[in-house]
């Protein structure tokens, strides 16, 4: 019996991974007349079932992984975490058509100019082999593709050439509560660019306020990359789901990739192509390269530098919150409407990027609290009234310094459902990064104190966690012993292998990475188009 997920005959390009990077590369190249096949390890989800997914995400009986079929029990998503700090990998990603945008928050800022030159400006990490100006037109294209709602009111943002495609979401009531305190402390607030429709755009409706953006937006107002996977198919691309790529095989010289070997629920196949693009995120991308070791590439594909998997970098969460006397009107929507980049540039309080966020979802949500409570009736209602109403909180992301010892390696002692070694995420947080987290906490406390808040919690260095942004594991640069791909995101070691992923970031900044992932993917697609 034939396998409906069998290989495509003689494609120009094989893209591995149908998240935002892969979907945008596939769509761009297909729309320019190239024959494209996309291999995606996860499911193609029926989005008409998103309300059921939303309910699963709210009801305490269901694990987070159930929402998007992660950790199904067959070992597909197995991993280990042997670093100083545990890394909850499967909470941090989704495998499927759309990738991790299926469960993402949807914040889409451009990186600042300094992020591309951290070595020159601050002696941190390496400079990128491209500048903000190089990426600037691609940022604009990415904003149009994703449908970004924003307004040009951020005095700290890098220059932009055109308005956002959609108007920004208006500030929340609680943003107004923060405003005076921020002015007192000297932290200027501004809007947040959201990949979320503030009005209908690209055949998707406007946000209707389900409040469950993360992990699922049943209205489809939040951008998810299955949008571009579908557009790629409309342009003639083939997207094959449940196709786990196990390794890439090179030709006899070892100079070019010849085929992707992938396994479906029914069979194992070889997909050939002229050009290959790995777009599997910051963990599975290096893993696939390492799994593709061969006689010609004994340390893994594209790994003559030894940098594949190294410099695994995250954004660290810093936050604080408590209660104020006034009602704060939280948990009506699941996204934020104001943030501040006031601490981002310069040396004070730290040269590392720091972004501050003003939450619209501080404190418990009554529905979730009710389903977890050990009471009901009038007693429960009294408890809910006591816990809801006066919470306030600030969050923030802090840049992590790249460290070669933070890495994704293969755990040779543990295998996945196909018998391949699983990724081992080794992660720690260094002292300079911890200092930056403490500095962010200090400003957060200053703002909350200026509001006369009773500060009830702080997330600082001891209990900080990752923002689920996997970066720098196949970073770009000039051909030397520390980088994997060049400025065009093409592997130094191979003639026809590109990488579209946050794994090519050189440093992390503190901006949510997906807009930069999208911009780089569009740029990669342009380079491949030129080459073909």
């Amino acid at each position, binding site marked *: 019996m034939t396998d409906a997920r069998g290989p495509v005959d003689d494609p120009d390009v094989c893209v591995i991974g149908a998240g935002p990077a892969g979907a945008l590369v596939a769509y761009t190249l297909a729309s320019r007349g190239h024959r494209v096949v996309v291999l995606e390890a996860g499911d193609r989800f029926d989005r008409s079932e998103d*309300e*059921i997914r*939303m*309910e699963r995400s*709210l*009801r*305490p*009986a269901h694990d987070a992984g159930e929402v998007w079929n992660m950790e199904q029990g067959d070992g597909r998503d197995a991993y280990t975490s042997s670093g100083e700090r545990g890394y909850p990998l499967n909470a941090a990603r989704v495998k499927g058509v759309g990738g991790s945008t299926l469960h993402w928050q949807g914040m889409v800022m451009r990186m600042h100019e300094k992020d591309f030159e951290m070595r020159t400006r601050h002696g941190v990490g390496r400079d990128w082999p491209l500048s903000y100006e190089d990426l600037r037109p691609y940022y604009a294209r990415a904003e149009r593709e994703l449908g970004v709602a924003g307004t040009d009111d951020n005095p700290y943002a890098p220059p932009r050439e055109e308005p956002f495609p959609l108007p920004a*979401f*208006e*500030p*929340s*009531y609680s943003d107004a509560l923060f405003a005076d305190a921020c002015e007192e402390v000297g932290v200027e607030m501004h809007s947040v660019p959201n990949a979320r429709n*503030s009005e209908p755009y690209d055949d998707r409706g*406007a*946000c*209707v*306020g*389900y*409040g*469950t953006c993360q992990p699922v937006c*049943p*209205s489809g107002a939040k951008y998810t990359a299955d949008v571009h996977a579908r557009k790629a198919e409309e342009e003639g691309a083939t997207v094959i789901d449940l196709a786990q790529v196990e390794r890439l095989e090179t030709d006899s010289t070892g100079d070019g990739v010849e085929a992707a070997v992938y396994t479906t629920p029914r069979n194992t196949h070889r997909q050939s192509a002229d050009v290959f693009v790995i777009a599997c995120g910051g963990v599975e991308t290096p893993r696939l390269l390492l799994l593709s070791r061969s006689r010609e590439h004994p340390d893994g594909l594209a790994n003559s530098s030894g940098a594949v998997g190294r410099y695994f970098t995250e954004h660290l969460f810093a936050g604080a919150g408590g209660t104020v006397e*006034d*009602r704060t*009107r939280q*948990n*009506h*929507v*699941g996204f934020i*409407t104001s943030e501040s980049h006031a601490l981002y540039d310069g040396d004070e309080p730290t040269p590392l990027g720091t972004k501050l966020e003003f939450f*619209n979802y501080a404190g418990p*949500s*009554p*529905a*979730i609290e*009710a*389903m977890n409570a*050990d*009471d*009901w*009736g*009038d007693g*429960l*209602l009294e408890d*809910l*009234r006591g816990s*809801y*109403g006066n919470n306030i909180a600030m969050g923030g992301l802090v840049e992590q310094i790249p460290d070669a010892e933070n890495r994704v390696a293969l755990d040779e002692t543990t295998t996945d459902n196909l018998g391949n070694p699983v990724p081992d995420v080794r992660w720690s947080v260094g002292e300079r990064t911890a200092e930056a987290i403490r500095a962010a906490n200090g400003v957060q406390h200053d703002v909350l104190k200026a509001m006369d808040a009773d500060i009830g919690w702080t997330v600082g260095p001891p209990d900080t966690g990752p923002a689920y942004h996997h970066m720098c594991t196949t970073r770009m640069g000039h051909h030397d012993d520390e980088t994997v791909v060049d400025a065009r995101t093409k592997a130094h070691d191979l003639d026809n292998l590109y990488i579209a992923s946050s794994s090519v970031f050189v440093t992390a900044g503190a901006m949510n990475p997906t807009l930069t992932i999208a911009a780089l993917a569009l740029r990669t697609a342009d380079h491949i188009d030129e080459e073909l």
Partner: protein
Amino acid sequence: MELTRRDALVALGGAGAAAGGAYTVSRLDDEEAARGIVERLVPVAEVVYPSQVEVTTDFLETYVVGRIEDREGYLGGVSDSLDTIDSYAVNLREEAFRDAPHDARDSLLRYMGVDEAEPDPDGTEAERVRYYVVNELQYALYTSPVGGKLVGIENPVGYPGGTDTYRRGP
């Protein structure tokens, strides 16, 4: 505050908006089973919901029919859980749960351990009752504006209440 058929349609979300016609048990193949569930849910809801909420058959019938049509496994799960509750009531009080006074019903559910049980559709008796009965009722109430307003939030999580309310003051 009386819970209405309209409140139940709101609580059902898209399923409630999409389906045509009235959500009455007469539209179901197993009309009797659904009617029995509604009748047996009323005395549980009277305990689980705050006293200022007036539980109505209209509300529960609409919600239950919507759930039966939209959630696989709901009918069997809720029916079995209500059987469990009744069986405890008969054994302990020699009467059906619905015939017990309000305080006794409350005590019986706590005796079963439902108040502290982790909800689990495949768990112990108490865990299944928590999942299929108590948390179904809580989800219906507190993810809809009628329940949210009791606490002070007219657009609770899970309800598509638009993008105006988050901007309004108290």
